[in-house]
């Protein structure tokens, strides 16, 4: 198996696994955050705006972990430097 095939295989598999495994923990964390926000909203409806704003800020911070995994996965598929490097000799024509 030459290096070109190996790079392609590893990139594709890694891209899939990155986004699949990388979105498990943020999803669980966001579920817990919304659960806590809902229960505190039920206990203190007067503080709804503060709770909602804090919830959104917290969700964005948790979401950014999943976004990091998505960015790596996209780079592996669409802007892969190793793939471009081994493709360059045949595409240079």
């Amino acid at each position, binding site marked *: 198996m030459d290096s070109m095939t190996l790079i392609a295989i590893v990139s594709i598999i890694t891209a899939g696994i990155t986004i699949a495994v990388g979105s498990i923990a943020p999803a669980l964390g966001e579920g817990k955050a919304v659960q806590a926000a809902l229960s505190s909203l039920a206990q203190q409806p007067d503080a709804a705006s503060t709770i909602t704003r804090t919830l959104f800020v917290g969700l964005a911070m948790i979401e950014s972990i999943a*976004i990091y995994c998505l960015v790596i996965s996209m780079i592996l598929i669409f802007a892969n430097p190793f793939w471009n490097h081994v493709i360059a000799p045949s595409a240079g024509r």
Partner: protein
Amino acid sequence: MNLSPDQKIIWQWDFVVINSTIVTTWALMLVMTALARLITRTLKTEGAISRWQGFLEIVVTTIQKQIQEVGLQNPAKYLGFIGTLFLFIAVSNLCAIIPYYDPPTGSLSTTSALAISVFVAVVLFGIEEQGFLGYLKTYVKPTFIMLPFNIISELSRTFALAIRLFGNIMSGTMIAGILLTITPFIVPDFMSLLGLLTGMVQAYIFSILAAVYIAAATQTREA
């Protein structure tokens, strides 16, 4: 398939490269400034105000209220910076509805520039509020050993701001583009609707996080 509007070159001469990011950023700046100038040409404080002035008043007072709720005592001082961040990111993400438009926030250069300006603003506002030595002393709170960790957390917050905005907007436009090649016409509409929503949320998050970081740097030690 290009990952960011930086690769889309509109005009090139020797070493000066004008790419899509520069064109859209300047176009947005000109349009927003011209609109603001037009609307505030006839400002009234009593009587019937025009609808556009009412709209601008809603925007400004809402941002001011949000800044105050974050904990900054004098919101008028920070309104210019935080309001600009929110409005620029919100308008640039909202205009994604226009065809043949790539949001400039989908390029890592723009988001890094915004994140670096937040970092500089935090330092400057902190020095203005607590003095130069007072601000530097906050890095060694609570003990001296925390100095490298505080510095690393500052840098990683800046990095996270840039990557969060870039990742959200870039993946939104890219997924819409990929779906267009698979299932055209209806399904990409829902993805671009979701992209508009996340664009608004990310604009809000960026400006609120900037306000929170500034508040953390300017809070004086209370008893």
